[in-house]
């Protein structure tokens, strides 16, 4: 059974149609890259997958683990293993990383019928996962993303991903704004989670990340549709030639 199946998805924001019929199937263990020019609708797709109330689905369906994903609240999707590394992570002044993460981890555990972690267990887990992405302890003691640099925010997203161990992770341009070392650390974080059950969707404009995480499938989104599907070679051609040839193929 596929992990995720998106069928004929149409979505709009502020009355404007952004997605106009997306079809995409993801099986357990697969890594999919999603590419496309600015404004094509890639982040909108990730917003729909995570249930952002600002966006409205006007047509189509999404089946996740055999269930109707669109009927679930955002938090429920998280408990079911969906995670989005935001293109623009949100700052939450006054909410400490520790309280934030503890609420997240324990809500997930409760959903799975597991007991809440003790303070010691939780801090141990924090330490362990922080080491994975080499997130500075100073950052972990601050408010969520408050005053973090662009790169630190991205690293923090991967830290949260490591904490929550999602089944389907969506990385929305997690590589942009990262220096060379950070990119490697972030990619390592992603690769560590790889397994036969877990899948990822990697949205990117850059080659480097794809070299690290090795997607089996590449999809090109343009004007709210997936206009081309292929393997890694499709990605290589985009990096070499850009999107113009695709637009030409579409008769534009």
């Amino acid at each position, binding site marked *: 059974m596929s992990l995720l199946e998106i069928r004929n998805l149409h979505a709009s924001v502020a009355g404007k149609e952004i997605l106009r019929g997306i079809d995409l199937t993801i099986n357990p263990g697969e890594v999919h890259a999603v590419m496309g020019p600015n404004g094509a609708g890639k982040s909108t797709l990730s917003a729909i997958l*995570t*249930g*952002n*109330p*600002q966006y409205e689905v006007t047509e189509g369906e999404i089946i996740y683990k055999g269930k109707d994903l669109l009927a679930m*609240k*955002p*938090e429920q*999707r*998280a*408990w079911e293993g*969906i*995670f*989005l590394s*935001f293109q623009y*992570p*949100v*700052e*939450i*002044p*006054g*909410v400490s990383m520790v*309280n*934030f*993460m503890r*609420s*997240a*981890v324990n*809500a*997930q555990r409760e*959903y799975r019928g597991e007991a809440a972690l003790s303070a010691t267990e939780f801090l141990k887990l924090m330490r362990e996962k922080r080491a994975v992405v080499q997130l500075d302890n100073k950052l972990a003691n601050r*408010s969520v993303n408050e005053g973090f640099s662009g790169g630190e925010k991205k690293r923090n997203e991967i830290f*949260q991903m490591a904490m*929550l161990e999602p089944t389907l992770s969506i990385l929305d341009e997690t590589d942009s704004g990262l220096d060379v070392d950070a990119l490697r650390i972030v990619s390592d974080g992603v690769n560590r989670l790889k397994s036969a059950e877990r899948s990822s969707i990697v949205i990117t404009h850059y080659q480097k990340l794809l070299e690290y995480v090795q997607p089996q499938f590449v999809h090109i989104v343009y004007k709210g549709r997936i206009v081309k599907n292929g393997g890694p070679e499709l990605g290589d051609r985009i990096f070499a030639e850009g999107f113009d040839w695709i637009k030409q193929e579409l008769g534009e």
Partner: protein
Amino acid sequence: MSPETQYIDLFHGQRALIDEHSAPALNAHRDRAAEVLANVGLQRGKDASHVDPAEVLAKDYSLNLARYEVPTERDDIFTCAVPEMSTNMHFLVNEQYVSLRDENRVAAVPDGCYVGSLREFARQRPDVIGRYYNQLAGRRTDTGDVRSKQYEACSLGESALNTMLCQDGFVLYVAAGVQMERPVQLINLLRAVEDFMAVQRLLVIVEDGAKASLLVCDHASRLNEEAHLLSLQTTEVFVGRGATLDFYSLEEHHDLATRLGQLYVRQQGASNVAIGQYSLTVGQTRNRVHVELVEPDAQLQLYGMATLDADQQLDNITFIDHKAPNCSSNELFKYVLDDRAKGSFLGRILVRQGSDKTDAHQTDRNLCLTPEARMVARPELEIYADDVKCSHGATVGQLDQQALFYMRTRGIPEEEARLLLMFAFMGDVIDGIRLEPLRDRLKHLVEKRFRGQLNHCKGCAVSR
């Protein structure tokens, strides 16, 4: 008949009884107060506040002028203090000071100081009362401008009514140079089975170089589902040269309780005062705060917090009067309003001519959780001095929807996420509390309040 006339008539009719159960030093102020009340009246002023004192006082409340003892059971007098905070607890049941025979609860008072009943103190020390009592609440100050006069007038009538009828209350008197390390806690309990008005009077005197902290907790019991309780509460605070005072007030009233509070503070040179008004639950409350910094180098921190829901109404009307150079004031008020709650913050800062190098900052931030909740924010800053650092700002907003969504994508349930955001919003106004045990306790109480777990009407949450 207007409520003013009604109470003035009552006063003239019951004069002997009122005097008999009070003290000469307090009685001496009644006639003048009756005159002021007749002249000024109960004014809301032309402001945008919600609670109208004239309307509140139009109700026919009974009073306890003959000072019948209020039956108070052992359990009503709360059993334990804020952990590690204070064993120094005092009680007013309605307006009457209740002395506790339990010696363990009331710490020894340092020599030359006094903590206890206003009536007793007025009998023992008429000299001190003469110097301080009604010196702030009973007069119009010398501000020339119209707006300031309006700010003053809107509490003058209520305080005059208080002075006219007040028979007892609470005094904290700290003699020059005495450092009272242990905080004093006063619990004000409203308790009646019928519509009732308690005329409460508080007097706090911290003389030159002395130091004290006071926590006042306002409660209303609910003995009867219909009884409306009113606390008419006038507080005068004098802080001498180089003296330090922390004054915290925590209100937990219920929907049938009304509070008309007027707090007057006079700070002398190089004094340091922190005031915190924490309104956890209210019925209808109107708090007036008037602080004068009369000599150089005085410092004031005035903080306020409110968590309102249902049909609760709260007005905070503050007036900080900078009358001397080199003083600083830092004012911060925060409200969270849910359901159909109504709040107002009317904050005036006046920096008078000659008050050079004043440092005055005012911030008012509010969260309305529903479209029905209403908040009025009116910051006012007027400066007639040179070389000052002043700022003011007010905002009324909603919870950050982006932050809420972000948290939910991490699996934090919506309710919990809202709670974390509301709690974060209150962070700085709670962290500003200088008494550490109170700060911790209040964090806990505010969290409970947001979770809807705070018992609105029974007992003292601070003390449990």
